[in-house]
């Protein structure tokens, strides 16, 4: 099963990362659309409503791709991870089913009202549709994070007579402390992503000299929400998340930091290359004491290294885990810096005239996506070699009757399908950007073409 296990993992990782490119934007954008509709309600004018209408169209295209790429995710628990589903289905089946019941029905019902219902609904009614969609998409995020949190830090279960996991304490499972921290960290990161996208388009229109009024709104909302959310991603949410890893997955923390030796007064690795064979970090640049403080709150705190753990419990790709974590943390820092400078210029009234800053904002939007994906790669590789942490190894979880060649076939199928889907998506998004924001039509939809 060795080869096929790798292919099962690769297919799940590929389809999941691809899928998540869309909800990461729609979840953050759902929040910003609520903000735009609220500002529109308060100010009474049409400016914010026009802005919201444009972003609802962008939302709609992203949402459609998110839906169609999301359905395969649900099914792959069964197709590719059948032994895992049998082992943990009695527990994680709850959150996966609840996502459909509580989130998807809400989203699918209110999306058409939000997209096509502006003239049929009152201003407050349309605002309510935006709120419903926001609640639906953030609930969906919560149920998925809870499912993942159970795999990271299983709580609320007992072991049944046949060895599979059963639900023992529903509240403990649903309000897993790991889930709460991860949810806060993840959802603020979706707002960062959406803020950078909104700001980038504002900068683009300003540089083009088109849609100037809307461009200023995008820039203002994007940089304000971007600064707040990118700070919140690091502190307190990222910090809390890191402390949980230190507490519950010390071996993952050691691998993320490329740390082999244990000891107090641990330094934080800024750069360096983990050399797993020689069990050392090559060419390290570290900040003294900081890791002990960040992980446990005190310079004297002992931080364990990989050598303190049996090698069979090490994450199986320490190099990728280390780099993914450092890319996430490094980009997170850069994103805060970009938004801080943009807000400073904005406060001085010079942002709109600052060409270089507009260029930076316009071109920076891919980096939150990369940071988010790197963060998830860190989370999932840090969980290895376990599928359910400390209980069930990844190697035990794949489907027993599915051959490696079959998985390779479907993986290649996904590559082709998703390539075409990506081209179509970019084509449609580029068209929307080309049209730009437009006033409402008599029937209530954004009019163009």
């Amino acid at each position: 099963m060795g080869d096929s296990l790798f292919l099962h993992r690769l297919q799940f990782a590929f389809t999941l990362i691809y899928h998540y490119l869309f909800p990461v934007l729609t979840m953050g954008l759902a929040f910003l659309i609520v903000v735009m509709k609220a500002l529109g309600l308060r100010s009474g004018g049409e400016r914010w409503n026009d802005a919201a209408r444009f972003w609802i169209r962008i939302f709609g295209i992203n949402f459609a791709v998110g839906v169609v790429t999301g359905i395969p995710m649900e099914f792959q628990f069964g197709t590719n991870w059948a032994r895992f589903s049998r082992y943990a289905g009695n527990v994680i089946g709850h959150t996966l089913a609840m996502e459909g019941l509580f989130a998807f029905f809400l989203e699918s019902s209110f999306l058409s009202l939000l997209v096509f219902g502006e003239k049929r609904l009152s201003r407050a009614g349309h605002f309510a549709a935006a709120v419903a969609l926001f609640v639906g998409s953030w609930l969906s995020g919560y149920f998925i994070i809870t499912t993942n949190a159970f795999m990271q830090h299983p709580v609320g279960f007992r072991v049944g007579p046949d060895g599979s996991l059963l639900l023992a304490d529903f509240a403990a499972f649903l309000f897993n402390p790991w889930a709460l921290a991860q949810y806060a960290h993840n959802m603020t990161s979706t707002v960062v992503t959406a803020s950078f996208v909104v700001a980038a388009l504002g900068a683009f229109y300003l540089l083009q000299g088109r849609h100037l009024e809307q461009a200023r709104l995008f820039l203002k909302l994007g940089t304000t929400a971007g600064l707040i959310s990118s700070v919140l991603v690091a502190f307190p949410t990222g910090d809390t998340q890191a402390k949980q890893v230190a507490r519950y997955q010390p071996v993952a923390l050691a691998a993320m930091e490329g740390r082999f030796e244990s000891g107090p007064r641990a330094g934080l690795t800024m750069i360096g290359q983990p050399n797993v064979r020689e069990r050392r970090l090559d060419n390290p640049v570290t900040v003294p004491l900081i890791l002990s403080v960040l992980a446990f709150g005190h310079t004297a705190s002992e931080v364990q290294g990989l050598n303190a753990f049996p090698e069979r419990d090490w994450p199986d790709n320490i190099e990728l885990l280390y780099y993914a974590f450092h890319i996430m943390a490094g980009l997170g820092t850069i994103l805060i810096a970009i938004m801080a400078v943009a807000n400073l210029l904005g406060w001085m009234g010079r942002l709109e005239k600052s060409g270089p800053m507009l260029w930076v904002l316009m071109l920076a939007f891919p980096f939150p996506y990369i940071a988010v994906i790197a963060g998830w790669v860190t989370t999932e590789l840090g969980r290895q070699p376990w599928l359910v942490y400390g209980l069930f190894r990844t190697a035990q979880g794949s489907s027993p009757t599915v051959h490696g060649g079959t998985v390779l076939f479907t993986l290649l199928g996904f590559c082709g399908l998703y390539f075409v889907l990506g081209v179509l998506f970019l084509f449609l998004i580029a068209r929307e950007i080309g049209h730009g924001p437009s006033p409402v039509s008599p029937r209530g939809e954004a009019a163009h073409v």
Partner: protein
Amino acid sequence: MSELWYAIAVLMLTAYVVLDGFDFGTGALHLFVARTDPERRQVLAAIGPYWDGNEVWLLAAGGALFVGFPKILSSGISGFYFAIFLVLWSLVLRGIAIEFRSHVNDTIWRRTWDLGFGVASILLPVFFGAALGNLIRGVPLDAGGWFELALFTDFSAKDPVGILDWYTVLVGVFALAALVGHGATFLSWKTDGPVQERTRRLVRPLHGVIAGLWIAVTAATAAVNRDLLAALPGRPLAILLASAAAAGLVTVFVASPRGRDRAAFLGSSVFLAGLSMATAACVFPVMLRSISDPALSLTAYNAGGDPTGLRTALGWLAIGLPLAILYFVIVFRVHRGKAVAAADGEGY
């Protein structure tokens, strides 16, 4: 508890068949009954507000099976691995065809997506029907409750079987006919003008075909799975549901020519629901039938989920299900009346 969850899963799957069923039927028909772009937009406007929500019933039913019968879901879905991906890819095609079509006002672009929508909507009912055929015929389960199936073998419906054989393909064709008929009653109800005229003309002939295929599939089922029909006389619920299905079919024949389109659609819905649930009532408690040794079959009793966890699930189900139904009522009320093709570039 096993009986209850079996019923819940069957009800949710039935909701999926009835609701997404009219999307599939509409998609399969629209290439033929809607010829111009405004007519096709009218068809898409008819299902546009619903299709995504309808599809969620599949995920919700899958979730209910996951919680209620994890052992059955895991072996079933991994055993049908390749067929599942064909279904998933077709669902991807169906979804983007509906959503992407309206964004560009170009004849070739729109006809391409119409074709994709049509082809996916024809393939999916066949796949789902064939899946049901596999469950009725049985699969080669091993002692651990796992199986693997080739896509096809010699089409004989005898061990060694494949996913496709004469019986499962026949059930697939029956499912396609039933859903196309269902879509025809839906379009007659929700559209007007030429599209309504054309689909109305199709309702009765289509349901004639459906009635004929129903008899053929019943006879074929008797040959492939003797237990199923043998169990029927002792199962009043199954007889009741099958009678309801027949009554639904008769309703379509009576109501459609009199222009009572909504009654015909409801009749078609009762037919599909009755038929799905009658089948479920006949095979109970077997969920994954072993083709070789009945002792290996996975049933609601020997593969049921943990009762404590399921009691918890009843709690959230009691909150979530009424909410979901409420959303559907809201959407159907907001979009009541005939579907109107949106002006160009606006929506579907």
